[in-house]
């Protein structure tokens, strides 16, 4: 159990490629922080620097109050779960769980107790004597988790642990990870590129882009108040609709709310904030033709070509869409649902 402090951390690869620019982040005790971002944004590099698998060019990483920059991964008292599980293929499940403890010289009775406990938590008791290749993907994932749990480390580091699983299993394991992390209260850092995984797992979400932190906050905060166009586009599925303010103003019959800041030259609207009926309070309307309807069960995603606007507008309709493809409909965009951004800086304007 420990806090993780990252201050002024930089990573420069040979050839002067900077992967992480001067990054600060502090992770509280028992917190599950998710690092999310597109591939190449530096999220894995950051995790590997915390783990000690990557050297730190500048700045410090401390775990539990002690600076660990020069420490070997094993001395940092962290456990890592890898994307491809990285189970030792020639060892049984029990061997895999025990290996780290044996290397630390843990006494035999304690090893046995911890392995039994981890196997119980993860429901892998029946497979303890099997080899990893005799297990399914989900079971291997559990063993990889077990290897982290038995160590009772200061922190868990997850490097896209669910990417190799199919969609259904991914959903199950996501809940499982959250449940285990909650009950063990171990500080955790979780890297993923899947924004749904990030939203659902995180106590706190860190959105990264090009080696920098774009925004840190609770998942819902980030969804409701994205600090930049990047975060607005990355968090939420289907993605936020972005409109050019000039274009909107030029449309006949569109009056943008007066509350819109002067500096805002683009505005974003969440697909689920667009309404089919005129709401109370300030709003404006757009007309368009329905191009495609994707029924996903409880809701439908509607792709609409709006008049005089180049981009496709996406909206989410609860239940079945009350219209069909090719039909012309009117959309209502409430003023309070508009997210104003400055296109030149990419930042939100108040």
């Amino acid at each position: 159990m420990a806090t993780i402090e990252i201050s002024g951390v930089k990573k420069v690869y040979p050839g002067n490629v900077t992967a992480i620019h001067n990054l600060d982040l502090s992770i509280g005790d028992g917190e599950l922080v998710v690092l999310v971002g597109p591939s190449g944004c530096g999220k894995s590099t950051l995790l590997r620097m915390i783990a000690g698998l990557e050297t730190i060019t500048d700045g410090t990483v401390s775990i539990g109050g002690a600076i660990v920059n020069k420490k070997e991964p094993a001395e940092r008292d962290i456990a890592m779960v890898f994307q491809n599980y990285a189970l030792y293929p020639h060892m049984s499940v029990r061997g895999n769980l025990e290996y780290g403890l044996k290397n630390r010289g843990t006494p035999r009775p304690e090893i046995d107790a911890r392995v039994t406990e981890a196997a119980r938590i993860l429901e892998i008791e029946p497979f303890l004597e099997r080899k990893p290749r005799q297990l399914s993907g989900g079971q291997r994932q559990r063993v990889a988790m077990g290897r982290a749990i038995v160590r009772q480390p200061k922190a868990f580091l997850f490097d896209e642990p669910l990417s190799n699983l199919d969609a259904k299993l991914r959903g199950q394991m996501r809940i499982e990870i959250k449940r285990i992390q909650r009950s063990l209260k171990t500080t955790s850092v979780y890297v993923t590129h899947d924004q749904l995984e990030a939203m659902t797992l995180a106590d706190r979400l860190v959105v990264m882009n090009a080696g920098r932190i774009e925004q840190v906050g609770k998942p819902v905060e980030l969804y409701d108040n994205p600090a930049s166009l990047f975060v607005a586009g990355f968090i939420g599925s289907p993605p936020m609709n972005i409109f050019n303010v000039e274009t909107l103003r030029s449309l006949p019959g569109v009056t943008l709310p007066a509350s819109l800041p002067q500096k805002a030259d683009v505005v974003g609207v969440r697909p689920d904030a667009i309404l089919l009926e005129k709401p109370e309070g300030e709003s404006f309307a757009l007309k368009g033709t329905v191009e495609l309807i994707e029924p996903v069960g409880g809701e439908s995603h509607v792709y609409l070509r709006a008049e005089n606007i180049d981009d496709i507008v996406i909206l989410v309709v609860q239940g079945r869409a009350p219209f069909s493809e090719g039909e012309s409909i009117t959309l209502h965009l409430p003023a309070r649902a508009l997210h104003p951004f400055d296109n030149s800086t990419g930042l939100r304007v108040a």
Partner: protein
Amino acid sequence: MVENRPILAFLTHLVLVLGIILVAFPVYIAVIAMTHTQQTLGFTTPLLPGNQLIPNLIDVLTRPSPGRPPFWLMLWNSTLMAVIIMVGKIVISIISAYAIVYFKFPFRLLAFWTIFITLMLPVEVRIIPTFEVVASLGMLNSYAGLTIPLIASATATFLFRQFFMTVPDELMEAARVDGAGPIKFFIDILLPLSRTNIAALCVILFIYGWVQYLWPVLVTTREEYFTLMMGVQQMAATAETDPMWNLIMTATVLALLPPVLIVIFMQRLFVKGLIETEK
């Protein structure tokens, strides 16, 4: 490939059978020659077995003749030489491959290519300088002289390097997180994973060592270090009498047995290893 064409089937089988006959016929002749007397073999090449197998075997195994050391001593020398070469080459190769793949050091690539180049220079090419070195080190007529120069090429480094590069990096990282240092990772993880490769190399390198002829002839003059390959050759090269073909062939067939047994025995391990291995 599931066509049923009788003529094609016949032709392919004919080629296969001819190939087998071509390769196996000399071996057959040798086995038949084991069972005849010297008199019969002096005039004809019999194609059917005779009744002298037991006397010939007893003769070769128990009665040393002049210029020929005892069979058991030569068998021991050959085995020892082949095993030392096999073990030595594997140990050197696997360690150097480990260094090249898992450690970053200056001139890493140069080191690899230097090792690789030793593959292109077999003992026969560098035999005179090698002999000079061995002679000045006083290693003539010793097991060290017989084996060390033949070990000194990391034949299998390339093979192990290729294999290590297919082992996911995460395995090494997981081991580091689990507190395994470089030596522990090598012994606990990498060696068990290399089992199949090591088994395959054992076969190849044992046979390589077993069939060495030129080098042992050069560095040994004392009979106590003679190998089987040399002994068989010496039996054929007697000046005063006719060669005892029955005994020569008996010794030849006996010398052939260990490599054959090794291949048969290790083949099972191969297949087992191939089925079980997963990275």
